[in-house]
């Protein structure tokens, strides 16, 4: 599929901002399954400094400094890219315990690198509640793909999508207690549950194609930034390619070519689309819009 993605983030301040610094994760990560054809990043007012870099996880990050007095800030990223569906895991992954033991033994470089994805992280606490939630999906010996998919379905069934219930600082335990949240909460819950079992899981931030497939309902999370997760196992295949199984608990689907990846990390904190520190500003209003439109001509 070829898409044109337009992501607009704007802040309106009640008091003018004299200087601000921002750190962005809005430029898309390229990969064999996601070829960037063109992109642009437009910021108003014009920043004094813009620096692009690759972060710890290989994502693209952007630093901005704005020293012009302003009451409104708009960041618009536009990308044209070609997406192919992720390579499906080569098999069912074998008993889930095998993957857990593989990471724990840390006997090969890939396992050592995967350790990153089993540890607690700023938004993912490996709490007893997360473990309790995971256990019913993971009876001994159950294949990893089946167990992880079952967990995804249970999260989808038991949590209610609710934009008002949580904010960016809500913990996994609070989401489990309240039973409500948005896609980043759904993803965090599954990541916490899998890591509590010792399984490697990472957070993916991205977008969904806006227009539904004919005859199918529109997916939740279109028109905005979306989030899901991936689980890895050497049994799925090479960790550089098919070794990752993507899961979208918000929609209870395995992501296909309708999911566009921006970045991945341990959790939301590693790949926050936009953060900033301001002088001035007072209160602010935030507005985000996302449009992911397929374009016919290749």
């Amino acid at each position, binding site marked *: 599929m070829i898409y044109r993605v337009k992501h607009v983030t704007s802040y309106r301040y009640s008091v003018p901002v004299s200087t601000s610094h921002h750190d962005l994760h809005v430029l898309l990560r390229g990969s064999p399954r996601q070829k960037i054809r063109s992109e642009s990043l437009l910021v108003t007012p014009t920043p004094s400094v813009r620096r692009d870099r690759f972060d710890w996880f290989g994502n693209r990050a952007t630093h901005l400094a704005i020293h012009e007095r302003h009451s409104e800030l708009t960041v618009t990223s536009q990308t044209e890219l070609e997406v192919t569906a992720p390579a499906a895991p080569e098999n069912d992954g074998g008993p889930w315990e095998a993957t857990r033991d593989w990471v724990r033994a840390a006997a090969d470089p890939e396992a050592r690198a995967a350790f990153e994805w089993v540890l607690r992280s700023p938004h993912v606490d490996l709490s007893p509640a997360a473990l309790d939630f995971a256990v019913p999906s993971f009876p001994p010996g159950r294949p990893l793909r089946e167990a992880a998919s079952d967990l995804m379905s249970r999260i989808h069934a038991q949590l209610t999508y609710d934009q008002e219930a949580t904010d960016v600082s809500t913990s996994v335990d609070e989401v489990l207690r309240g039973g409500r949240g948005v896609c980043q909460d759904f993803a965090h819950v599954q990541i916490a549950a899998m890591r509590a079992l010792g399984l490697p899981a990472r957070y993916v931030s991205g977008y969904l194609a806006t227009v539904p497939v004919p005859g199918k309902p529109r997916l939740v999370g279109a028109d905005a930034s979306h989030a899901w997760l991936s689980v890895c196992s050497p049994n799925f295949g090479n960790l550089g390619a098919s070794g990752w199984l993507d899961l979208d608990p918000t929609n209870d689907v395995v992501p296909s070519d309708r999911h566009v990846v921006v970045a991945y990390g341990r959790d939301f904190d590693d790949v926050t689309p936009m953060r*900033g520190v301001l*002088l001035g500003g007072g209160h602010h209003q935030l507005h985000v819009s996302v449009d992911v439109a397929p374009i016919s001509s290749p």
Partner: protein
Amino acid sequence: MRARDGAVRPHWQVLEGALKAFGPGEMWRRWEQARQLIRQHGVTFNVYGDPRGLERPWPLDPVPVLLSADEFAVLAAGVAQRATLLDRLLADLYGPRRTIAEGVVPPEVFLAHPNLLRACAGLTPPGGRFLHFYAADLTRTPDGTLRVMADRTQAPAGAGYALENRIVLGRVLPEAFRDSNAQRLALFFRTLRETLAALAPQGVLNPRIVLLTAGPHNATYFEQAFLAQYLGYPLVEGGDLTVRDGRVFLKTLGGLHPVDVILRRLRDDYCDPLELRADSLLGVPGLLQAARDGTIAIANAIGTGVLQTPALIPFLPGLCRMLLGEDLKLPSVETWWCGEPAVLEHVIANLNEMVVKPTYPLGPTDPIFGARLDRAATETLAATIRATPSRFVAQRQVAPSTVPVIEGDELRPRPVVLRSFVVADGADGYQVMPGALGLVGGAGESDISIARGARSKDTWVISDSAVSEFTLLRHTVEPVELTRGGGDLPSRVADNFFWLGRYAERAEAIARLGRIICSRLAEPRDAQSLAGDLAPLVASLRALTMVASGTELAALPPLAEVAQSNLIMREALFDEKLSGSFIASGRAIDRVARGIRDRLSMDTWTVVSALAHELADAERGGPDERPIVLGARLDRVVMILAGLSGLTSESMTREAPWRFLDMGRRLERAVNTALMIERTLPTAAAADEQPLLEALLDAADSAMTYRRRYRATLQVAPVIDLLVADERNPRAIVFQLAALADHVTSLPRDAASARRSSEERLAFEALSEIRLVDVETVCALAGEAGEGRPALGSLLGDLVHKLQSLSDALFTAYLTPATISRALASPEIGA
């Protein structure tokens, strides 16, 4: 000190001889002298959560630890190698992470470390060096080998204390120091300065280097201020710095000045609220990006805190072979990281020989000594470790070797730990301080830290031959350009000087009034006349401090009136909730002085310390202290504060700090005098005027002048002339206004602007108004009886108002406290 056969080891002989020659009495006397020096220098450390207050005096034992040249050579080679190794390890962790990929260190040790700052990935510091300043805690085990107990890579503390210890001991044991051929520390600090200067981006000839502190509440703030002063760097807080167009600047009275190098004493995760801990208000937004861009050098590099974990120790031999291709020279105390199953079992089976520590010490944590636990407690500990084994490290409990320590009037052997300091040199290597910070614990103790009551010791490295006399205090490293600048004063510092002036003046004014009241109360007199004398004094005191409580005095019978006056005075002095009280002002002096400690001379600091001690004594004395005792105390306070103003007027260069301090003082004095007169005299009944005028003269320290000029005739106009309009009287209002007018014209300002600034306008208006006043007219009584002297009242009322506007204008133009940066809410995903 002694070899196994009991003989004194050779390098101890000179000191041993000196100590013997003293005898116990002399040693005791010298110890007292050391304590005195430490108190005078205000050497302190802060203990978090200590209910006894913020600061404790630095504990120093006057008998140094001695190291022979041979011993030091072994130590130096070992810790220098360790510094090199840790530096290479940092480059790997923030770069290719081969050490993890190849399994030389378990992945969890660093990947789970809260101080692994992933935002620093790929950030290459200047010259590729991460670690510029490192410290190792060493102990000598019973087999005689020196071993490392802990590594300090974040922002090692203690080198400044080691230097202070040396300065004190140099004065307590000068003969022994000279005769022992002990090596000096100054070269070490010169290397530090040279290394930092060399870090500046290419092409910068005269780099600006600052010492970044977390602020006065930090445990080792004294040391940071001391080092800043000794090294000649401004001591700055995060709020003093700003990043503009990718460069770091220091915010000063004269505008923004570029900064090239930061000597960092702030924890690395607090350094940038944008990319590191968002909840930190201590950092500088954008600093990390400036470091990435190479426009600022930071020592140590941001991210070095990740090596501060004892879990690293067991893997150092392997890391050393991998990264340096050689064996680790200096062994560590045997250490086990419990994250590996086999290791865990070994630790649990031998808990009684272990000291258990958290893998990631996030705050002050006490190590647990297995040997001190009973069976039940051992089992509980074992269960705790088993629950999350990777979060625990066990270290073999060692009995550190002992050194002689003064206890009572004799020397006793006590266990010692040495903190050795290492600085990067200009080449590729590291230089080790020829000395160390010694820490001694109680008998048999092995958890030794200042926070847990340990004492410190100077450490002498004894040369075989005479040593270089180099000192950083007398010579500068390179010829510097002559400068008389001063525009580079951080705004925060100017702010503190201003308030130091105001609070010192306020405390002095209250103390002066208080001691007059005390001396009246101490006189054996009848209540009637005493009450009459006290009333105007108390009224003045009330005008100064805004004491709220208290009935109208005149309504009371004389005896009750005296008691009530006494009560009001105590309140004005000691009510800490009253922001204008003496005690609140005294504490504020301490607080603001602490914020500019690096800019106060040793003598000035001695005065500030003396005031703090006097206040603490006064509080211990309680509110019921007899007037005569309290009066004597206030006498001392007045003398101390007079000492402070003497020092500031005679020892401070006429630059911005002095101007701000003096403006604070002048403004406060003008306002106080105006308030004292305005609140009392214009409305006073004719019968009360005489004692009131006398009180006003006393409070303004002008009674003597008046008597000399006018003999005994007390009249309103001459008193007002002397206290308000006489330009030769340094206590007169007009004198303060003239000084203020001079100051505001000398402040740094935009030279292009021809307009007078608003602070200039206000100061000149106030000055000319008072200069032009006709004292006789303004003191005249109103036509109607009972209306008092309205012209005087409105003149002074307006003046107070104008001075407040002047203070506001100064704040807007120069002292606006650093606006606090706020984090922007990030958009929620899927919302």
